[in-house]
């Protein structure tokens, strides 16, 4: 059941095959109360994150990627949100932790880079102040020192003339610089885990590449474990060690980047890849090889939620398939599909564009 680190060579440091995960998520469920009932955004996710690795979460819009990642640090807690399950991190169970406990984790051990940096930065505060605020909150340093550290951090994320630019306001920055500033805030306290929710989606293609390079190099340098949520399989191929594919609130396939991108097992993953020109581009809004759209909330069928769109539906599919390895030689590559259980030969036409 637990996803162990891959035995292949693409792990972050590749040193030990049986490392302990630093973040261990079990049966995570997130539901949003709405007027028309509860929307189950995350529907029983198990996930392990290992120190220093980059784990990408991919899936169509609405598959629950944000809901899952935000619930880890309680950023979507509220009267309309129901979160259950467990997420163990440094001896704290994050899901049931009090706000006070979570505050000591947020920003210090787990930080987040948000998608829309313009909205995510306070328009009335100087950039330097917004970075320094993160530092003074978790480190015992003077305001002056924090400011210097903030300037240093802004330089580290590639903002030119950081001492001068620390005095700027967000609206005076370009989109790329804002995302760099957001990254500076998130990494200011050298967190163990960085959650990046579509950090490049709002940016131009060239800027996207720069920000990804930055994330990757800082991640290597600091040894940060990164959970990167993305629509873009190009991003996955560029920086991820492992990939989890989400569909309708569940992880339907997980494995190393190589395994998932080049030897996908789950019919959804295969359709996703087949629909994506060149395998490593952005996931298109509609998937030509998978007709239909993901079931939302209450329409979700019993059993495999991909069944309405799946070309291979079996009688077993009326029962929910569990996420498990179907490769005796590699327990790290897992998928949730009955096809693997039954070892039925699968027609290969959906991978023809590979």
């Amino acid at each position, binding site marked *: 059941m637990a996803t162990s680190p891959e035995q292949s060579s693409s792990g972050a440091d590749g040193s030990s095959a049986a490392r302990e995960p630093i973040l261990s998520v079990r049966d995570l469920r997130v539901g949003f109360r709405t007027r028309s009932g509860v929307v189950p955004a995350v529907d029983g996710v198990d996930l392990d994150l290992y120190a220093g690795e980059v784990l990408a979460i991919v899936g169509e819009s609405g598959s629950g990627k944000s809901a899952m990642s935000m619930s880890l*640090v309680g950023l979507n807690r509220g009267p309309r949100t129901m979160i259950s399950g467990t997420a163990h991190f440094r001896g704290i169970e994050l899901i049931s932790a009090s706000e006070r406990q979570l*505050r000591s984790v947020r920003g210090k051990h787990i930080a*987040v880079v948000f998608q829309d940096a313009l*909205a*995510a930065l*306070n328009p*009335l505060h100087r950039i330097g102040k917004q970075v320094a*605020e993160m530092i003074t909150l978790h480190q015992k340093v003077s305001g002056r020192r924090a400011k210097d550290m903030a300037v240093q951090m802004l330089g580290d994320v590639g903002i030119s003339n950081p001492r001068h630019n620390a005095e700027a306001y967000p*609206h005076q920055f370009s989109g790329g610089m804002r995302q760099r500033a957001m990254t500076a805030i998130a990494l200011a306290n050298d967190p163990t885990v960085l959650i990046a929710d579509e950090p490049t989606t709002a940016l131009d293609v060239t800027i996207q590449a720069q920000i990804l390079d930055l994330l990757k190099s800082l991640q290597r340098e600091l040894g940060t474990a990164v959970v990167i949520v993305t629509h873009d399989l190009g991003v996955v191929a560029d920086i991820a060690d492992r990939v989890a594919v989400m569909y309708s609130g569940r992880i339907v396939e997980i494995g190393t980047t190589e395994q998932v991108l080049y030897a996908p097992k789950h019919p959804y993953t295969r359709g996703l890849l087949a629909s994506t020109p060149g395998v490593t581009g952005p996931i298109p809004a509609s998937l030509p090889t998978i007709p239909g759209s993901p079931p939302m909330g209450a329409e979700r069928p019993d059993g495999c939620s991909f069944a309405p769109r799946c070309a291979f539906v079996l009688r077993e599919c009326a029962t929910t398939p569990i996420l498990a390895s179907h490769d005796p030689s590699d327990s790290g590559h897992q998928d949730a599909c009955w096809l693997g259980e039954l070892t039925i030969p699968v027609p290969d036409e959906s991978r023809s564009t590979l």
Partner: protein
Amino acid sequence: MTLVMRLSRPLRSRTLGMLIVRRLLLVPLVLFAVVTIVFFAMRLIPGSPATTLGVAGTEGLSSKQIQENIDALTKTLGLDRPLLEQFGTYLLAVSRLDLGYSFFGSNSVVSLLKNTLPATIELVFTAMIIAVILGVVTGVVAAMRRGKALDSIILAFATVSFSLPWFALGVLGIIVFSVQLGWLPVLGRLPTSLGYQPTTNFVLLDAILQNRPDLVLPWIEHLILPALTLAISMAGFITRMVRASVLEVLGDDFIRTARMKGLDEWHIMSGHVLRNSSLPVVTVLGLQFGSLLGGSVITETVFSYPGVGNLLVSAVNQHDYLLVQGAVFAVALLFILTNVVVDILYYVLDPRLRKA
């Protein structure tokens, strides 16, 4: 919520200097409009100052004599001239900042305003400060307790307060605190027994200039009830504004960032919510100041408070044209200048308006 969004939209101005210049350029225009409207409106009201003057103290005179009297006065006051000529003459005088004389008594309009305008300024600004403090505190508390009992109570009070005839509240205040309890003076601005000789006519300022600390307490005692009366309705408005604005800001993405940093609710509120949600409130403050000035006319009358409002009411009753025109002119000027200050405040609060 759309109102909040619309009003918080940044003004399109480059520098503070340009902003002020642009606003000040509007001043003569607005004043011209105000003067024109008041000039003709006054002359639309039946009756004339000559009649009011000519009839006064005329017991025993025949109606013919009275009429002759009135005709003579009409000529003296220049009211027999064509209306447009009168208007032109007045505009010329105003452009030289000469507001003329009251028809009753021989005081210049400027000297009458010098005596009364400071009292009104004291009243409206005290009311404004009370309203802002009350409104912001209750608005923030309501937003933080959204959907809870306290929120409903505050909202109910706010709604009632600005749908209430608040001058009736003033009368009630006089009856309870002044007449029944005897805690506060009934009317006026300062008791004559204090022998207050105005320098600037701003009591607080004069108390310092003349070293008369004994003026302060009576001044506050006289001011508090009218100022509260005036403040209540505006406070209710600000409460609702602040509540909506705080709730809107709380939903903004940068609040999630603040939470991600590990800030607690108190620091999020004080460091990230308050200033951001003050923007739309500041914008309406300038406009609300207008209704505050309007309200001061009634409040001053109810409390016999010697301000411009009181002056204006008696001037209208007496058809004292020049005084009415001058008083409205002064109040309009006060309104415009306050709005310039509000613009500057907004500009200081929101860096997005400043040039990169």
